[in-house]
């Protein structure tokens, strides 16, 4: 089992971590390229940068606005994120692993604080999971990944906490550590392909929306032409009664 653990936190970790970084870099770059294209396509270059900046910062550090609505959910969500960001990066044991593998490291959190944060993340994660069933508006909205993520995310926290704080038999320890390492690797592999991609995309949200409202001049007419009804625009009576000509150049996948 130990060799599996070593594989998990050695080569597999390096692969998962690299793929996560590459995946996140890819979608970030794609979004930025999309924004540049949208900006170039629009003749309206007036962007309210102040508004974009203010809204972006306000949501990245939402301490002022989060609690205005749904205070219980907001509190749970806030502390969940806090634990999720701080513990994996600043746990003393993790920092030590970095130091050993890469030769450099950064200051670690005091062990006691890491422990509290881990416990908070676990409770909050389970709280968010329960909230999916308890809050009527969220129940119907929840997809499989929305239900799976809180559980998957707390898994390395629970196992990590058990390993570093409880006196357990070596075999149990190994089993726990195995789950800890492999669930963490799985999380890293999944991040770029799921909603957790917001960890890098969230700062772009406001500018993305601002750009989407920049309607390129002539686009409406080009859409009609592509659909084969340039001579019968939508405001001509019963124009759609006539079967639209096949639009060869456009086809949905």
């Amino acid at each position: 089992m130990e060799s599996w653990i070593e594989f998990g936190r050695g080569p597999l970790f390096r692969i998962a971590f690299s793929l996560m970084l590459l995946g996140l870099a890819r979608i970030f770059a794609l979004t930025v390229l999309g924004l540049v294209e949208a900006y170039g396509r629009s003749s309206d270059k007036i962007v309210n940068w102040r508004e974009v900046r203010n809204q972006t910062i306000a949501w990245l550090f939402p301490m002022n606005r989060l609690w205005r609505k749904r205070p219980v959910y907001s509190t749970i969500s806030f502390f969940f994120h806090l634990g999720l960001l701080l513990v994996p990066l600043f746990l003393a044991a993790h920092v030590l692993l970095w130091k050993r593998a890469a030769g450099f490291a950064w200051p670690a959190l005091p062990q006691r604080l890491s422990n509290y944060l881990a416990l908070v993340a676990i409770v909050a994660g389970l709280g968010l999971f329960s909230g999916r069933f308890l809050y009527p508006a969220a129940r119907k909205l929840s997809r499989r990944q929305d239900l799976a993520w809180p559980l998957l995310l707390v898994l390395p926290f629970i196992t990590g906490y058990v390993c570093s704080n409880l006196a357990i038999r070596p075999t149990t320890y190994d089993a726990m550590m195995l789950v800890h390492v492999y669930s963490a690797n799985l999380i890293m592999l999944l991040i770029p392909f799921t909603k957790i991609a917001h960890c890098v995309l969230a700062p772009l949200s406001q500018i993305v929306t601002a750009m989407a409202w920049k309607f390129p001049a002539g686009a409406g007419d080009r859409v009609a032409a592509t659909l084969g009804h340039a001579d019968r625009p939508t405001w001509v009576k019963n124009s759609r009664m006539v079967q639209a000509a096949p639009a060869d150049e456009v086809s949905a996948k």
Partner: protein
Amino acid sequence: MEPLSTEERRKAFASAKKPDIVRKQRLPVRYHVEDFDVTDRPRRFLQAFAAILKHTNYRVALDHYVRVSAKCARCSVKCQVYLATGDERDVPCHRSELLLSVYRRHFTVSGVLRARVLGDAGLTDDKIQEMAESFYNCTACRRCYFECPMGVDHGLITHLGRYILSEIGIVPRALAVSVREQLLGATGNTSAVPVPALIDTLEFLSEEIKDGIGVDVSFPVDRQGAEYLFLPAVSDFLMEAETLMGNATVFHATGDSWTIGTGYFDGINYGLFYSDQILEHVVKKIQVEAQRLGVRKILIGECGHASRSAKYFYPAFCGGKDALPVINIMEYTHQAWKEGRLKLKAGAIAERVTYHDPCNIARPGWIVEQPRELLKAICGDYVEMTPNRRDNICCGGGGGTVSIDEIQPYRTLVGGKAKADQIRATGAKYCVAPCANCKKQLRELVAEHGIDCQIVGLHDLLYKAIVFG
């Protein structure tokens, strides 16, 4: 907010449509739709979606939204429709997911691959029907946007969803008929007001002002080289005499040159609600008239969507940074008052007054404080609704729904329920709603809910407070 009673729910969602029309069009929505090709709708919907993605900037937003949307349901607390119905299908994020799921399935690589593996057949006619219903239950007020930690703009999705639907012929008849008259009709405006009727109205309004305050105020028509080309919602010429009298009297007091153009005098632009193509063609009508008269600025009357569609889309379609500046009449009046060119009598309005923020001008933070400062200057008893300003609640008739008469019970019982409670709580005698759409909706709303409050425009009250000399 109190949930709807069973009786209210029945009334709000009752459909006046004939069952054979519903069967023929295969569209169980409450609004009327002109006949259209019903065959092969999913394929044609996807074709329209693909064409729109190809030529517009929506793709960057859709890509982003499908990646980040966390389905946290925070938006639910901001949606006046969901708060009234309690129906999970009315949660903004659920509404958006209708379209986002189509995008994910048909226009992303992962969606297409997934469908191949799992054998998902893709878009169905049922889902198109669901979208046709859902996107017109939303008033596109964008209040939920400010509550979304991921920055998903559900108003944008509603706009896009309606745009795609309109390209396959699904659009409320009321909106389609108005746009047809505006772009193809002899009168060239949404209310079909002919020029002689406009001239008669303006002369009548001048006489009314003379009779009312004893001042000779004219409504300049086709004045070449005027500073401002004035475009109110054309319905104001039919229904909002006092607002227009106030507008003209302000200009009389400031002495600035302005004009109404007989070539085009309608600020309304339903394109903002359902079609980028219509939005552009209507905005360009303003440009043609502005060039004909050689004006220097575009001045939009008291109307939220008219102001937004000109302010934010005139630069997009008519020359970018070189486009003529677009301002709203409330900005103009506020500026003139600040500069001391307009004198107002303090305390001219003794009754209690409150202010309703039209979503289209308040949400971007554009016109929020200007009307309040003017009202505080002339009102003895001004009170705020809660919430207000950028966080205002929609009147319930936004997104063009106010023009769809057959869904009036829905608008007053569901869409406007929160607003009715707000107005009642202020105890105001006057509710100032500087928007043609909001005014119509709020009047129907106070009548339905038995609230003793008169809905007026800002300039209706300013008209009573302007001091000459």
